[in-house]
């Protein structure tokens, strides 16, 4: 088995990676900005913002603490529910979560900038991992976690803070999962995501990189060596269109392209004309990133605008970034020139026979990610539903095998980091309660 390392030791980010050319869109609040925004919060009772946060951070309390000048207390309030609160502060789609539910929103006033306040608290407090409160366990148990994404990290952090042991096995060379490799750079850069992984390692979480479950590691091995297993493998590769020319040059899946842009050495080539195919948030992210890197970007979606699954505020932002949006166009084939370079993508107006060719030097296919296969099969009792997602209890994450838990994208089919954090944390809480002898959790016996 490979050596244990702290979050980012093993992995070096390319210094000339493209993501560095894209600046933070919502920079850290100054103390003044934070306090005056905090004082605007009404300190609601049974606050709707809390209910809209998948990790149910006590938002009015952490905001009030910023207002009183107790920034560490504020950060601790956040971490009590969400150990990845620093990332979530910057990457959560707050418009549809906490801020979307702030009472000011319904009142047609600017909602409290909860995300930016959360970033202020977590980043300004800069708490060492040792500052988080810990409780001991009567008998320390040991949990193996598969994948070092948000779900596993949150699960592992919760376990070690309650006196248990947690060991994460990650097939890639870096931790953080998509939080490191996929988040739009104007929200979060990879180095910050890796720093958070290192911080969680400092809490006492053990991480092993370059260990792929199913290859180097097998189900029975984990079940015999550990008290419980948590599956947090996320989603798989980019899905493919299955049309001619897709394997040729200049055609790439969105998650793959974004990972290159964020982590790898820059190819130092002008982007030129880019066609992004898809209508979800990943498509929008890729399109905005290309536009911000100087590309001439057209996002092409096969149905109408209203059918796009991307958030309305993101579609709007993409337009502001200069992205052209074309709808009702079904991709037919990728067109390459004599020397094999991509020259365009042929689309047919949905329902019509004729083709239009959109010129492109780069085509990014953003039609979703496949499901990770071959994980559930290794654990007796763990089931996968028709859509390929692992079946787990939504409150506790327990699967059909009472020692195997799962959460995050691999269970919910692909949501946000904050949902993965909630799922990982809740699985840990269910285990902690089970081992503490709590009987109230019917499923956790």
């Amino acid at each position, binding site marked *: 088995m490979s050596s244990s390392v702290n979050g980012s030791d093993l992995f070096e980010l390319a210094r000339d990676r493209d993501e560095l050319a894209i600046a933070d869109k919502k920079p850290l609040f100054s103390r003044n900005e934070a306090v*005056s925004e905090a*004082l*605007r919060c*009404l*300190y*609601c*009772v*049974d*606050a*709707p913002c809390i209910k809209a946060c998948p990790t149910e951070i006590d938002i009015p309390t952490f905001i009030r603490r910023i207002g009183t000048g107790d920034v560490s207390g504020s950060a601790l309030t956040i971490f009590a529910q969400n150990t990845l609160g620093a990332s979530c502060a910057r990457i959560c789609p707050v418009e549809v979560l906490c801020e979307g539910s702030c*009472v*000011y929103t*319904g*009142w047609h006033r600017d909602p409290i900038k909860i995300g930016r306040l959360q970033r202020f608290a977590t980043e300004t407090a800069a708490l060492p991992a040792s500052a988080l409160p810990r409780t001991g366990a009567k008998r320390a148990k040991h949990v193996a976690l598969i994948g070092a994404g948000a779900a596993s990290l949150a699960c592992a952090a919760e376990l070690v803070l309650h006196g248990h042991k947690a060991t994460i096995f990650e097939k890639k060379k870096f931790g953080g999962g998509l939080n490191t490799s996929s988040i739009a750079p104007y929200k979060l850069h990879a180095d910050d995501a890796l720093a958070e992984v290192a911080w969680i390692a400092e809490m006492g979480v053990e991480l092993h990189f370059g260990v792929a479950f199913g290859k180097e590691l097998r189900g029975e091995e984990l079940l015999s060596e550990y008290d419980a297993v948590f599956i947090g493998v996320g989603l798989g590769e980019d899905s493919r269109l299955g049309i001619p020319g897709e394997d040729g040059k200049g055609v790439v899946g969105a998650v793959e392209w974004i990972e290159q842009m964020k982590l790898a050495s820059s190819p130092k080539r002008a982007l030129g004309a880019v066609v992004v195919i898809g209508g979800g948030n990943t498509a929008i992210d890729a399109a905005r990133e290309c536009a911000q890197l100087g590309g001439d970007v057209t996002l092409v979606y096969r149905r109408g605008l209203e059918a796009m699954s991307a958030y309305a505020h993101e579609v709007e932002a993409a337009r502001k970034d200069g992205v052209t949006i074309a709808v009702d166009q079904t991709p037919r084939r990728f067109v390459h020139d004599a020397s094999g370079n991509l020259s365009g993508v042929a689309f047919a107006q949905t329902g019509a026979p004729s083709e239009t060719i959109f010129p492109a030097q780069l085509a990014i296919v953003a039609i979703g990610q496949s499901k990770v296969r071959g994980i559930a099969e290794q654990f007796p009792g763990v089931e996968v539903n028709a859509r390929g997602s692992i079946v787990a209890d939504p409150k506790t994450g327990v699967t059909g095998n009472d020692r195997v838990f799962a959460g995050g994208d691999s269970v919910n089919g692909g949501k946000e980091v904050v949902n993965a954090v909630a799922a990982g944390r809740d699985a840990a809480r269910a285990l902690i309660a089970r081992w503490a002898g709590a009987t109230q959790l019917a499923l956790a016996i």
Partner: protein
Amino acid sequence: MADLSIEFAGIKSPNPFWLASAPPANTGDQVMRAFDAGWGGAVWKTLGDPIVNTSSRFGGIDYGPMKMMGLNNIELITDRPLEVNLREIREVKKRYPNHAVIASLMTQTKEDWKVLIRRVEDAGCDGLELNFGCPHGMCERGMGSSVGQEPRLAEEITSWAREYAKTPVLVKLTANTGDIVEIAEAVVRGGAHGLSLINTIKSIIGVDLDRLVPLPRVGNAATNGGYCGPAVKPIALQMVAALAREKSIGVPISGIGGIGDWRDAAEFIALGSTSVQVCTAVMHYGFRIVRDMIDGLSSYLDAQGMKSVNELRGRAVGAYKEWGDLDLNYQVVAAIDSQTCIGCQLCVVACNDGAHQCIFTGREEKARPTHAHTVGLAKPPSPFPIGAIAGDRVPWVDEPECVGCNLCQLVCPVTGCITMREVPSDSVDSWNDRVRDGRDRIPGGIHE
């Protein structure tokens, strides 16, 4: 447009708005700029024997995002030479003959008062204001509030001033006294033509928690100061009203304390002030605020059908009664407007933790607290109110249990969302009625 001009114990002023004796009325240049901006009068920064001020002298208290809800100062009287002040008073009066210029004075011996009064009257001031109010620094030297807290001393010094003065004598009172009426009666006996109140209130504005020294800090120490600004307005209003309704007083009142706009001014006037004085609001926002005061007050008077500000004076005094005279049968209950409610539920926690446990959320019937007067479950309104903004988060009031305390209305961030609805009653019954009829024994509450 209503007539705003007033006459205060013979002092004429184009409107009731005066600068209080304080930094805004420190120099001739400021007073003239204030008159140009629209102020009707100014009480000059207190003149007296030479003093030295500390550096670092003000402290503020903020409320939420609002700065300076209250201001505290440890400044003394003027630190400019008397001759300079007198020259400037003369200059101002020459250029603004129709504006009121009142000299605030503070000194010690009878002879000192005599000389000071002669000199300021020679400079042309329209009246005098004896500063018996300053609660910091000067009182340690036997002046200011140390005079204003001693009725006999205050009466005597007032009578000295009357002996020498040719212009009207106003006395500025301190709020740091147990009974404002007692001290006011004393200075009226001493011959005061008018009363100004309140001066600042003795206070410590805060503590520097890093150095553990109170504020405002002067090196490694601090002293108590005088508190003023919006936070003191309720205290000042009560004191003004207490004097206005007292038959034994009978002299005009200049109301001071937390006045910042025309509404504040109108309230002071309705409770018996002839003129009003302003310090903190000018220190915060400048002389320009008087425009709103002038325009706002005159449109208010027009809307009320009053031709002159004098018609407003004292109009609310009669309704300021003893508790024992209030109608115990009068009843209001809270009513929540589901269409404007934003669902913050601050009313719920306020009523439950701080009032009478009768606001609920949710569609189910609720158990009333064990001390409730009404039997049975509290029933949600039917049909259940679905808010335009808050959906099913709109709270509801268990009306039979609502005592009509107003707390929920006061905490609701949406103005007008909670109204206090009057429940008709056909009889009137006050505590004093009950005592008179022998239904209750203790008049006024505490004494037999």
